[in-house]
């Protein structure tokens, strides 16, 4: 149980390359079932538009989970993530077509802490929007 990334081999300011995560309607249906969040704004276009949204939008937690994947894949161990927080700054609109949406996540090691921990700041975008802000993970490195 340990990260594959070594604390001594990273530097503050180091960038973690972007990864693209596609989102289709079926992913939101699966996420609704797995999470128990059946708010119809995440699967029913008619309902979403009736409450003033442009279309069906992804669960914020689905987007946050993609940021989580980004960090755990980089660190090499899910247990390395000791703190993870985000603000949902914009919606991920998921149209009912073959393309769906794409969430692009990238990261920067903002700070090296004590006890071999680092702060990773994430950027998540979909289309022209920044969908997460203040997205920050504390990661226990080896």
């Amino acid at each position, binding site marked *: 149980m340990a990260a594959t990334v070594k604390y001594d081999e990273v530097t503050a300011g180091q960038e973690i390359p972007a990864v693209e995560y596609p989102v289709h309607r079926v992913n939101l249906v699966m996420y609704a079932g*797995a*999470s128990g969040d059946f708010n119809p*704004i995440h699967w029913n276009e008619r309902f979403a538009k009736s*409450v*003033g949204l442009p279309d069906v939008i992804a669960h914020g937690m689905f987007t946050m*989970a993609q940021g*989580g994947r980004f960090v755990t894949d980089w660190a090499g161990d899910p247990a390395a993530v000791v703190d993870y*927080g985000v603000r949902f700054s914009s919606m991920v609109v998921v149209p009912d077509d073959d393309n769906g949406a794409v969430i692009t996540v990238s990261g920067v090691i903002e700070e090296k802490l004590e006890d071999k921990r680092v702060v990773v700041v994430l950027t998540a975008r979909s289309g022209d929007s920044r969908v997460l802000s203040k997205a920050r993970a504390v990661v226990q490195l080896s």
Partner: protein
Amino acid sequence: MALNRDFVGRAYTAPAPYEVSRVKIKEFAAAIGDTNPIYSDRDAAAAAGHPDVIAPPTFPIVFSLAGADEALSDPEFGLNFAMVVHGEQRFEYQRPIYAGDQLICTSTITEIRSVGRNEFLTVRSDVSTPEGELVCRTYNTIVERGGAA
């Protein structure tokens, strides 16, 4: 309609412990598109040094608001779920969550504030074992659009 401020400070404990299962972790990992075998294969988890399959970092969202549901759906509270979007979320871990964990969740409504036309509601959930070991703490801020209008 504004949210009822009388609810600030109230704490709710889920009626029964949440039992973390391998099947649920596997389902959740599949739903977020994460194919890491550490979430679905006990041998892969063991090979990585874990006692059982481990939960992804955002997994506690599955159960962490179960206790607070009672308050959030109380007509006296005044929350219109159709207008709710997620504002902020944070998970602070003392240790990872594993299949087989029994977790007791106590949720406290810590803050309600108006920002423009919207209501912001923050719930803190303390997730512990039945023996009282704190496993993680979650902070969930939801936004009721137009709620303060």
